[in-house]
């Protein structure tokens, strides 16, 4: 029977109408796994495995709870509040809320895109990511259990995600869970859903807007504050949703203005705009927003959603820059003028009668933004950037050295010292030292009793180095090709490609931005695969060598040893988790469909991938990292991320926690603590580098792979920590695991310091390792996976 959507009225049955809504034509491409569309408790058993090993660590930001009217409750020293919740569980609850905020942001973004695209192109618009990407949606296949063929198919995926997010939100009401472990399981669930929602958003925009489809040679994009051209009309687009920026680019092209007006972006809108139009420019991350606005260069600012300063309208108004808000998520208190005559709106914005407008329809933004930019630029004339030299000197003279700015600065930068030095000596050079570490949040100005325009002082004093901040990023290429996975799957699992390092996340770095480039180049030189996204991807574009080449110009964009891959904006993080999933599917032939725990278990034990969120600040970053964690991928985060309150850190010395089932030997056996954390902070770049190498080690490494990984780990520890790492011996199973050049030396240490027995004649380890090496070692933590591949039942 040929079914179609619609109504059937049965003649013989009065008043009976059958409505057929969605027709699901799902071919049997793969048998359905055990957990399609999992609800909150369906993967709890997997979470419990992770949480048993990687014990949640809580660092409370406050020791009180004030979420209900029985409170506020003082919970210090893990006391219980009026509802019975203790401090630890309250912190876990807050982590769930943070993850919910992050995942909801991506989900709402995805829903907006899908809704818009269905209206524009119809629900049957095909999902075609090119001939090299057959596994088009690994997260959706794994979690939801379908192969989406059209944009319309994505709606049901979002229905599921939204439903689950609401169910988890429900659990954070007063009087629900009493175990922090159950809240952690929910946080992990939300993180997993986040990757599904991000995948929906990104594949929808890739196919509909013809972004690069896994192209390693995606175009190079001009990046950095210095790319802003003060001599042209400039439209600054800020946020994470491409739709209004796309309309601006289209309008410019339709009217032959693409070389007349500049479109420059901040945050992920910048990245996605350049995926759509490589002529657009990237100014930078959130930490460049105040820099860009206060410079006075933009002629109009267009905001969409997420990570946009909440004082954007106030800041722009001070500079005479009109604002066009376009999102229901950040309407900025502006009047909704979507349906008014554009001529009237433009006149109001240009004349200053209106400081900004809300235009809900992205297809109406282009004309307004472009015409306003052209008019404003004509009327403005030439202006000093930030402030005049006289103003700069006058501002500095106001400083009393009270140091309130220092205590309100997120990095405790010694602004007071720079001010006093400039005041006494007329030397402004100390501000140049501060600038690279300054995230331009403006908190210093809020606390200054003299009202000094501190951010402007820092930026004006550093104008030459700001202008020199230029570089090249590679446009976000989207998914990793199946053919690339086929090539690198085996070396990654064997360990001969020592690891995949994924710098992702926000710009709240502990120190200068350049440190991120220094960390990443260390791994590129060592031929790790580096795959990046979002703010980190942009900042890597500004990190240049002495010849002025950025990392993207020095290293190829392939997903292979020594490659630097930019997948795209925040939502493109799903391609990084997707690549790990695809390795399990393509290289190991593991079934994906509704088979989450098996694949996560595979990744945890075999794929040496580690995230680096060196400046994570947002709730989205919390949710993304938690999603990676559920999939068995650890993350090293910068020191500010201690403020997320929770980490997952195992204890190498608790031997009873480090075990697996070996499918080959059919035994439960001890295993080395690798990786020994899923989320951990590093304080300095030196420490981060060593941790990244360390966390790439996996139980299933072959001896050659382990040898390569240990070589890098030991070399990096010697280089940055000045010694052998404390725990290197824990990862040695056989003498063949040892770095060749150091084998004798290390065998001697194993014998002398750790009491291992060595056969010196044959240079073999006789006794000592946690377990012997076995080339066929096939580890799993999951009972049903063991049973599936051995045919044996485990007595639980």
């Amino acid at each position, binding site marked *: 029977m040929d079914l179609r959507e619609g109504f059937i009225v049965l003649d013989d049955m009065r008043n009976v109408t059958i409505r057929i809504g969605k027709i699901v034509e799902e071919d049997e491409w793969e048998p359905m796994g055990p957990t399609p569309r999992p609800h909150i408790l369906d993967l709890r058993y997997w979470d419990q495995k992770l949480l048993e090993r990687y014990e949640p660590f809580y660092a409370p930001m406050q020791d009180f709870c004030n979420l209900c009217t029985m409170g506020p409750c003082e919970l210090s020293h893990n006391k219980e509040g009026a509802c019975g919740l203790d401090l630890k569980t309250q912190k876990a609850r807050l982590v769930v809320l943070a993850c919910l905020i992050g995942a909801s942001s991506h989900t709402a973004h995805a829903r907006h895109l899908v809704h818009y695209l269905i209206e524009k192109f119809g629900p049957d618009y095909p999902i075609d990511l090119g001939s090299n990407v057959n596994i088009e949606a690994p997260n959706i296949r794994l979690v939801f259990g379908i192969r989406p063929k059209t944009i319309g198919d994505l709606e049901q995926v979002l229905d599921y995600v939204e439903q689950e997010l609401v169910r988890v939100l429900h659990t954070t009401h007063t009087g629900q869970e009493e175990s922090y472990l159950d809240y952690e399981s929910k946080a992990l669930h939300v993180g997993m859903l986040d990757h599904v929602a991000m995948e929906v958003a990104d594949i929808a925009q890739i196919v509909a807007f013809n972004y690069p489809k896994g192209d390693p040679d995606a175009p190079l994009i001009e990046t950095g504050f210095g790319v802003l051209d003060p001599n042209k009309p400039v439209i600054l687009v800020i946020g994470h949703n491409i739709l209004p920026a796309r309309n601006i680019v289209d309008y410019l092209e339709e009217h032959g203005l693409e070389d007349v007006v500049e479109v420059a972006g901040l945050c992920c809108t910048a990245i996605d705009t350049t995926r759509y139009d490589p002529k657009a420019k990237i100014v930078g991350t959130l930490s460049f927003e105040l820099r860009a606005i206060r410079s006075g260069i933009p002629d109009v600012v267009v905001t969409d959603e997420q990570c946009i300063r909440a004082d954007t309208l106030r800041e722009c108004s001070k500079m005479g820059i009109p604002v066009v808000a376009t999102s229901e998520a950040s309407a900025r208190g502006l009047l909704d003028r979507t349906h008014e005559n554009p001529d009237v709106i433009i006149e109001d914005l240009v004349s200053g009668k209106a400081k900004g407008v809300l235009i809900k329809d992205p297809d109406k933004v282009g004309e307004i933004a472009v015409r306003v930019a052209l008019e404003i630029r004509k009327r403005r004339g030439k202006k000093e950037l930030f402030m005049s030299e006289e103003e700069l000197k006058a501002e500095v003279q106001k400083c009393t050295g009270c140091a309130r700015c220092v205590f309100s600065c997120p990095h405790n930068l010694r602004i007071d010292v720079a001010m006093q030095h400039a005041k006494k000596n007329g030397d402004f050079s100390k501000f140049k030292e501060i600038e690279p570490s300054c995230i331009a949040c403006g908190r210093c100005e809020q606390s200054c009793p003299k009202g000094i325009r501190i951010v402007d002082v820092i930026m004006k004093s550093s104008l030459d180095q700001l202008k020199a901040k230029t570089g090249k990023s590679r446009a976000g290429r989207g998914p990793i090709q199946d053919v690339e996975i086929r090539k690198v799957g085996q070396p990654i699992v064997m360990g001969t490609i020592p690891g995949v390092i994924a710098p992702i996340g926000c710009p709240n770095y502990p120190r200068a931005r350049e440190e991120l480039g220094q960390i990443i180049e260390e791994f590129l030189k060592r031929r790790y695969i580096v795959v990046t996204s979002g703010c980190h991807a942009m900042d890597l574009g500004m990190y240049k060598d002495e010849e002025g080449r950025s990392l993207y110009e020095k290293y190829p964009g392939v997903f292979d040893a020594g490659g630097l891959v930019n997948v795209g904006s925040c939502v493109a993080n799903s391609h990084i988790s997707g690549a790990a999933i695809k390795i399990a599917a393509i290289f190991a032939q593991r079934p994906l469909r509704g088979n989450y725990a098996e694949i996560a278990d595979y990744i945890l034990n075999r794929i040496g991938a580690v995230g680096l969120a060196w400046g994570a600040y947002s709730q989205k970053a919390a949710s993304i990292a938690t999603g990676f964690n559920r999939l068995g991928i650890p993350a090293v985060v910068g020191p500010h991320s201690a403020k997320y309150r929770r980490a997952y850190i195992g204890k190498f010395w608790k031997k009873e926690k480090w075990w697996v089932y070996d499918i080959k030997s059919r035994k439960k056996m001890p295993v080395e603590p690798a990786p020994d954390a899923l989320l951990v*902070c590093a304080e300095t770049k030196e420490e981060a580098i060593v941790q990244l190498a360390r966390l790439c080690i996996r139980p299933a490494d072959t001896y050659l792979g382990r040898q390569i990984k240990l070589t890098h780990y030991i070399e990096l520890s010697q280089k940055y920590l000045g010694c052998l790492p404390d725990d290197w011996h824990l990862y040695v199973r056989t003498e063949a695991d040892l770095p060749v050049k150091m084998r004798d030396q290390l065998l001697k240490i194993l014998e002398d310091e750790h009491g291992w027995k060595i056969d010196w004649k044959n240079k073999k380890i006789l006794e000592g390792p946690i377990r012997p090496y076995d080339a066929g070692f096939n580890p799993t933590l999951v009972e049903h996976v063991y049973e599936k591949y051995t045919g044996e039942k485990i007595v639980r």
Partner: protein
Amino acid sequence: MSLDKVFEKVTRIFNPADVQASKCASIIKPKVVATMIKKAKRPILITGGKLLEDERIVDFVVKLHEKTGIEILTTGGSSKPLIERGIKPLATVFTLHYITQYLLDPNWKGFDGKGNYDLAVFVGFTTPYYLSRMLSALKHFSKVNTISICEYYQPHAKFSFPNLNEDMYYEALNMILEV
């Protein structure tokens, strides 16, 4: 203002927003730091990344170790300058996050297998906000006594130096050594 007076005044938190409902750290004088280290059964000194850029703190740590015999756990890469000065830290690769997680576990036997530590002294952290969170964890979920001898007042330690300017800070460190 003399150093003695500074130790008697009310001090500001490194970030005024890092507010807790429960008790904040008591200000500790340098002499008392030395006494507490001496009296503790299992004291441990935990060093941070500032040692990579501040030779004077490296000097202090080396001298404190020599004078008191206190063992050292290095984090943030601080092992490198100390090893160059002949110190053998008990641990080098574990970050402050790891070490705090271990300290929280009463069953941990320490890096030398002799048992958990009863006094943790922190020095040389470039990131007061990171140390603050770790001290918060130890305050709420452990019985370990904590002392911060960093340059900013740390409210979640049991005892902390007040905020000190550069000269006073090094003077205070020297006073610990003089006892």
